[in-house]
């Protein structure tokens, strides 16, 4: 019996004593990764892509999701499709481009041709096949078991009996609404994907993405940078709350001193920028009323959707997803999301904001990468030094954005899935 089979929880929890610890085994054990694959990634709703990535019929992107190769396409009728990118004939990957526009998909191995909806259109030597061969659903590219979307965020699930996406997202939807409502004409993914990796367990990035506690130490040089800029900071203190959204989802919602292209002005953006930000804000008030406009414009959100989607609406909006390759290695993809109708001015500052802080060439993310990799190194001592502590803020009625409630929400749900128990 391996160590994982002997375990029935990875958590040590005592609410009264404000103890919440996570076994470091959870970051290093290959059997735990195997259980995560079958009990989390095969069961939960996973982010596939944004509708704006395939705006026209025939547009497609190929992407790895939950270990599968997925073909995300818009068919001739304009409907979105999520198909397994595998030839029903003898298995070859059918579409080999990362993105593009196609009239059909052809498998080059023996030449089968599929429509944008995945239906087999033709195959060389058709006369040698059964007369009804093309009518059989098994001759088509296979559709993913479940495929649903909310406000242009599209998800797949490989468990055909899973609850609806709507139920699964639950309280997350309200936050996706707040984020999507900053645009009048809808949000769009801006071109250019940041694809990177870390030599660290994937759950370290879950924690890090919703960790308000590390900002001032890990990102000291980013704040130095903002101070050095001429007017890069608004006189707004970092403050706000963390919320457990159920189902392992969580959010931080807080004010912060950086500029937000929708819509918090900073002096660096000058008088023209002020006009633009004021106009954006007034538009929000017109569409949503004063109170909601304030929330959309002046509050930041680090939104986590279990198990591996992060939508951070901060100095720019990033959509980020990540998957384990091994217990100590993950691949990450990140995109920038923006209002479709945004002016060139706002788009430019949004992208600059994004890459100054976020992404593997920024002034912040490389230090996150370093922190997470150093944690993974630390876990080499996990036989003796066994526990992570995430108890910060346990005694408070409303934990702050820099407490660890959101991590406890994630880990409790993770534990329920992996050990199929409740804590």
């Amino acid at each position, binding site marked *: 019996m391996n160590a994982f089979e002997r375990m029935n929880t990875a958590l040590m929890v005592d609410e009264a004593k404000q103890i919440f610890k996570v076994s470091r085994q959870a970051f290093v054990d290959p059997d735990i990764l195997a259980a995560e694959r079958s009990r989390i990634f095969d069961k939960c709703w996973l982010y596939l892509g944004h509708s704006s990535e395939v705006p026209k019929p025939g547009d497609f992107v190929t992407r790895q999701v939950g270990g599968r190769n997925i073909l995300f396409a818009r068919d001739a009728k304009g409907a979105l499709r999520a198909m397994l990118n595998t030839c029903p004939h003898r298995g070859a990957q059918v579409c080999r481009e*990362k993105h593009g526009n196609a009239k059909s998909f052809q498998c080059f191995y023996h030449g089968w041709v599929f429509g944008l909806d995945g239906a087999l259109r033709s195959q060389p030597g058709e006369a040698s096949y059964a007369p009804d061969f093309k009518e059989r659903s098994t001759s088509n590219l296979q559709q993913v078991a479940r495929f649903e979307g909310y406000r242009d965020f599209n998800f797949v699930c490989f468990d055909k009996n899973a609850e609806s996406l709507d139920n699964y997202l639950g309280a997350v939807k309200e936050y996706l609404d707040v984020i999507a409502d900053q645009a009048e004409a809808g949000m769009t993914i801006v071109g250019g994907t*940041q694809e*990177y990796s870390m030599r660290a367990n994937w759950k370290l990035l879950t924690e890090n993405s919703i960790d308000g506690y590390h900002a001032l130490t890990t990102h000291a040089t980013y704040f130095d940078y903002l101070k050095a*800029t001429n007017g890069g900071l608004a006189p707004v203190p970092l403050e706000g709350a963390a919320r457990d959204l159920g189902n392992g989802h969580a959010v931080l919602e807080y004010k912060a001193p950086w500029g937000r292209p929708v819509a918090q002005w900073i002096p660096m953006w000058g008088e023209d920028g002020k006009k633009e930000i004021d106009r954006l804000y007034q538009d929000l008030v017109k569409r949503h009323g004063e109170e909601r406009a304030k929330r959309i414009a002046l509050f930041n959100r680090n939104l986590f959707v279990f198990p591996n989607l992060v939508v951070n609406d901060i100095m720019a909006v990033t959509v980020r997803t990540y998957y384990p390759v091994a217990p100590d290695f993950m691949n990450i993809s990140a995109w920038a999301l923006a209002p479709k109708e945004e002016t060139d001015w706002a788009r430019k500052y949004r992208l600059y904001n994004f*890459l100054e802080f976020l992404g593997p060439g920024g002034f912040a993310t490389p230090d996150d990468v370093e922190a997470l990799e150093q944690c993974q190194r630390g876990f080499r001592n996990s036989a003796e030094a066994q526990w992570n502590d995430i108890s910060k803020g346990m005694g408070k009625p409303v934990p702050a954005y820099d407490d660890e409630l959101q991590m406890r929400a994630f880990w409790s749900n993770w534990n329920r899935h992996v050990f199929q128990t409740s804590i």
Partner: protein
Amino acid sequence: MQNISRADIEDFLFAEADLLDEWRLPEWLELFTEDAIYYVPSTDVAPDSSPDKTLFYVADDRFRLSERVKRLMKRTAHAEFPHSRTRHLVSNVRIRNRSEAELEVGSSFITYRTKDGITDTYFGSNRYRIVVENGRLRIKEKRCLLDSDGLRTQGRVSIIL
């Protein structure tokens, strides 16, 4: 710019590489003009894309570049503390275009970075726009086009390419 030879350019680029490998970043910064830009585009966009419209890994104007240098010289730039060891190899240097005011130069690079027992390789091509200021060669634009599939497996560009 008519009298500048490829050998002059090679000497200049080799010296640039040495400054980076020796972590003499403030001196390296002096090789750039006051209006210089330093770009590393993401790898799924066209090489001549604009960072105003598409997401890059790095899009520094001279101010941000000088802040990048300041940052990298601090102990609190955790990704590069202690400094990694690097080796910038520059080859296939070619003057692609020559005008009165500037040279367009292409080169290939392989850069190794070692830290904590792990070595990563960055490879691709550089496109420079080079001018003469006060009798010295200066970089007006450096655009690093990575040939890798994003930054898998390097994970970051915490060094200057």
